Structures are given as C-alpha cells and as structure tokens.
C-alpha cells in the first residue's frame, strides 16, 4: 500500500552579533542582515499577515497576546520573501529563515542548507557595504548565558488525532531523539546543575510538558494551532524542543523520524509507547548522559535507556514500512535511524561525521587535551559558540566539513540551486513561480496566500491546500498567462 504525501518545514532563529562591541543592538543588526538578503525577485513584496493567528491553542483556547500586523513600511523592513518560496525575516531580536514547504526529509535538508547559505550571503553583502567584517551569524540555540532561541519543525497532521493522544505518543520520542539530534553544549544554563558538556542546546530551557508558550516556560509539546491550511482537515504540529543541526545527517534523521512517527500516530499504527515517569527530568538527564547508558524511570515502574526507547519507535516504524510503501528518502531515514542507533549503542563517540554533539565534543576534547586545558576554560565555551558560525571562514563546523570530517547528504550544487528554486511538489512551487514570473506584481504572500496586483486592484489567491500548486499541476497554466489578470481569470475559470 502506498502512503499519502508528507508535508514539513523548519524555522531557524539565528544568533547574531555585531563585531564592533558598540554595535550590539540585536534588532538593528537583524534588520541590517535581512535588509541585505539576496534571492528576492520581488523586493517590495509584503508578508500577508491576514491568515495568521499564533495565539490559538490546539485545545481551543485563545491566549493573551498581540497579533502581529505591521504597516507596509515595517512589513517590508522585517520580511523578505525568497525565490525558493521560503521567508527570511526578523522575529523579535533574531534573524529567522523558514524553509518552503517540502514533502521529503532530504528536501528539507537541502532547503535548510540553502537558508544557511542565504543568511551567510546576506552577511557578506552587509560586510561589503561597510567595507569590513561587521556581523557574525550563528546557527545555534543558546548564548550560554540563559538566553535561548528556537529551531522549530512543522508537520502537517490530520486534525482528527486528539492532541492529548498526540502529546502522549510523542513525548518519549522527543525526550530521547537528542541522542542523534542534539547539537551539543559546553556547560549548563537556566540555573541547572553544572556539567562540562551536554547533548542538547535546549534541554536546560524546557519547564512544562504541554503549552502554547514558546518564549518562557517552554513546553515539550507545543500546542500552537495555526495550520496555514484548511482548519477542518489539518493541524500543523509545531515542534519546539529540537536543536538546530549543522550535520546534514542529524537534520535528516531529526525531521525524517519525526514525520514517520507522526504518520504512525495518524494511522493508529504506533501502539503503546513507554510512558516516562518524569519527561522533563528525563529530557535533562538524557542531555547529560554522554555514555547513553542511563536508565530512565517509566510510569509503570520499569526503566529504559534512551536508545531502547528510540528502538521501540524504530521497530514500530519498520513494521509499518513492511506493509506501506514509503516515498522518496523515507526508506533511507529508517535505514540510517537503525545504523545510527546501533553505532551509538556500540560507541557513542563513533558517529562524529553524522551527529553534531559528538563532532563538537570530539573537537573540543582533542583541543583541550592538546593545550592542557580543562572544560572550564573559556576556550571550551568559545569553541562551542564558534562551531555554529555560518561564515565558512570562521565556523568550526565548516573547518571540519572542509577537511571531510562530516558526512554530506546534499552536495553544494543542489544547495546552491535550492536558494533560488522552489520545491516542485507543494504550493511553495506556485509561490516561487509567481515571484519568478510576475516579480513586483506579487504584492504579498504568506504560506496560504499569494496576492497579485493587477494594476487595478490587489487580488488574494488562497493556497489553503498545501499540495495544490505543484509544478505538475500549474506549470502549463502559468506559462499561458502573460499577466496577473490572466492568471486570476484562468484560476477562477477552473
């Protein structure tokens, strides 16, 4: 039996620093960076906030807070709509990149890598404008001083799945997947007990199990209910406890395994999963267990290691794959999930080319030994931060990548192309194709709309079905339309 398509995307909040100590206003620096964003076919294009409501909760509550609705001038300063169908913008005091919607984990890796490249090119152009290095941009999730910023994943899920069931089925998975998706961190934050090194950037910051907040008292299971799609049919699961990865294999596994687990939940094929006695405590415990040998207490009195819990999910997914034909790179996700878990069980430090926390730990450990330093040395923390610098000349991950210590899944040419071409199999294609074809006549876009300026009026084309607007469906139509008016008439006509 073949399976219906998947849909996913990710959001990266970057750390940003002015190289001149006097230029440390994060909002100014972020605006400056996105202001130099390349790959914009319609530089004046607005972000269409009309369909957005991040204050609605999966359990039906409307929470306090202000909805965003900047005036057109501010809107353009904050938002850059990308040729690839993604978005580069200022979110609070951070630059943020959102991938376009994709159907496959390998495509997600490609578009996430493209976003790193776009942010780095914006930095280069910003530096050139002032004739010297002026900004540093980091793909990480914490400054080491108690301030965390997110990496969020988004997955389209059938709405008939009860949120309580979704949370219960996912939490043990989310708590334990950091063994391959943790980005690694020197030290502890947020008043947690000191530790030389831990697996996760984010584990110190999660204080509740289920909730809508993303800024304070962060929940393991986030209930934001903003589907950017037909609300009766879909919810968009907003996953916030993950780390941003630089290793492509880690990103691939993080989103690929998550999408598979969700599919099993939707199809009622996951079965019972181990229930952790204290998921928040377990999240921190796993993060601090570099040997991956500690047992996590379960609600029924038994205990399991993080690897055993991951294997439980893996086995269910493998069973499912025996009777369901999975598309694209999903079979590879399952294969690599197993091999990485096997390798982690044998020797956790053997997966450096695939897993960020291992690569970072190995690098810092080797350096400290060579220099006779210990983990309390400022050098250790400096290397931790510098690992994530997206500038290839400064970032330590990039140094290791250049010297072939990292496994690459998507080559540079494919990443290069993904900076300016949208994915072909989702509505992101239509968004990108309109931008490419009509340029400045695209007045605004959002995930679920494209607004066209016909010369007489602004017309909003809803794109509420994420799978409608693929290249195969609309390429011929778009090719026959010389103007936005033609397109609107064609779409209205059928």
């Amino acid at each position, binding site marked *: 039996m073949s399976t219906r398509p998947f849909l996913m995307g990710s959001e990266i*909040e970057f*750390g940003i*620093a002015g190289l001149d*100590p006097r230029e*440390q206003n*994060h909002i100014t620096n972020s605006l400056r960076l996105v202001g130099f964003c390349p790959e914009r076919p319609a530089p004046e294009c607005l972000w269409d906030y009309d369909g957005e409501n991040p204050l609605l909760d999966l359990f039906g509550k409307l929470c306090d807070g202000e909805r965003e609705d900047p005036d057109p001038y501010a809107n353009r300063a904050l938002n850059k709509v990308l040729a690839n169908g993604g978005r580069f913008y200022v*979110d*609070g*005091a*951070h630059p943020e990149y959102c991938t376009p919607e994709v159907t496959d984990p390998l495509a997600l890796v490609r578009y996430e890598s493209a976003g790193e490249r776009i942010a780095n090119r914006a930095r280069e152009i910003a530096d050139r404008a002032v004739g010297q290095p002026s900004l540093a941009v980091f793909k990480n999730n*914490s*400054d*080491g*001083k108690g*301030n965390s*910023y*997110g990496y969020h994943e988004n997955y389209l899920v059938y709405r008939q799945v009860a949120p309580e069931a979704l949370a219960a089925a996912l939490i043990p998975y989310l708590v334990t997947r950091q063994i391959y998706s943790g980005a690694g961190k020197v030290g502890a934050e947020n008043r947690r007990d000191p530790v030389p*090194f831990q697996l996760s950037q984010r584990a110190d910051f999660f204080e509740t199990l289920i909730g809508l907040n*993303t*800024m*304070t008292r962060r929940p393991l299971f986030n209930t934001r209910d903003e589907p950017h799609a037909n609300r009766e049919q879909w919810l968009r699961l907003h996953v916030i406890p993950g780390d941003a990865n630089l290793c492509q294999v880690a990103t691939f596994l993080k989103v690929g395994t998550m999408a598979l687990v969700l599919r099993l939940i939707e199809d009622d094929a996951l079965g019972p999963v181990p229930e952790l006695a204290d998921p928040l405590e377990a999240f921190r415990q796993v993060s601090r267990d570099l*040997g*991956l*040998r500690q047992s996590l207490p379960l609600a029924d009195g038994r205990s399991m290691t993080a690897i055993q819990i991951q294997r439980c999910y893996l086995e269910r997914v493998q069973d499912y794959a025996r009777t369901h034909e999975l598309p694209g790179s999903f079979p590879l996700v399952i294969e690599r999930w197993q*091999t*990485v*878990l*096997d*390798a*982690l*069980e*044998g*020797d*956790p*430090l*053997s*997966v*450096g*080319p*695939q897993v960020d926390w291992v690569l970072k730990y*190995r*690098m810092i*450990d*080797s*350096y400290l030994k060579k220099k006779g330093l210990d983990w309390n*040395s*400022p*050098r250790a*923390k*400096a*290397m931790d*931060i*510098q690992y994530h610098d997206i500038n290839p*000349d*400064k970032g*330590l991950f990039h*140094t*290791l990548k250049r010297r072939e*210590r990292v*496994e690459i899944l998507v080559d540079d040419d494919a990443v290069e192309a993904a900076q300016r071409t949208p994915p072909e199999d989702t509505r992101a294609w239509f968004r990108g194709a309109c931008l490419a074809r009509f340029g400045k006549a695209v007045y605004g876009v959002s995930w679920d709309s494209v607004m066209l300026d016909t010369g007489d009026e602004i017309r909003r084309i809803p794109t509420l079905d994420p799978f409608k607007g693929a290249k195969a469906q609309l390429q011929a139509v778009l090719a026959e339309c010389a103007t936005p008016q033609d397109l609107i008439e064609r779409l209205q006509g059928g």
Partner: protein
Amino acid sequence: MSQKQTHHEQDESPPEETEEPTGSPAITEKGKELVEDLDELMDEIDDVLEKNAEEFVKNYVQKGGQ
C-alpha cells in the same frame, strides 16, 4: 580498540565499551577515521579560533527568542 582507550581517559567521557559496534560499517568506519585524525586538525582550528576566548564568550549575548 586502542584508539578508544586513548580518547576515553577523562571523567566526562562515556564508559568503556567492550563490544564491537553492531552498526553499519560505513558509519562506524567514518567515525573511526574522524577519531584517528582529529588531532592533526588542531593547528588549523587554532588558526580559525577567536584569539581572545574570554572576550569572545563575554560578548556573545543574545536576546531570548522562541
């Protein structure tokens, strides 16, 4: 397993493992390659590192985000 022993001396290292990894040969082989020659990259890494680690760490302060 000699290389493992040389890298597992410190307290924070994972415990010694006596069994061979059962994982994919490709992955563990690449991992071993990394273990073997990370040391030789340390001079190159030294060239890239911020010279004043303390200052660099002190100055890296972010606003909390999502």
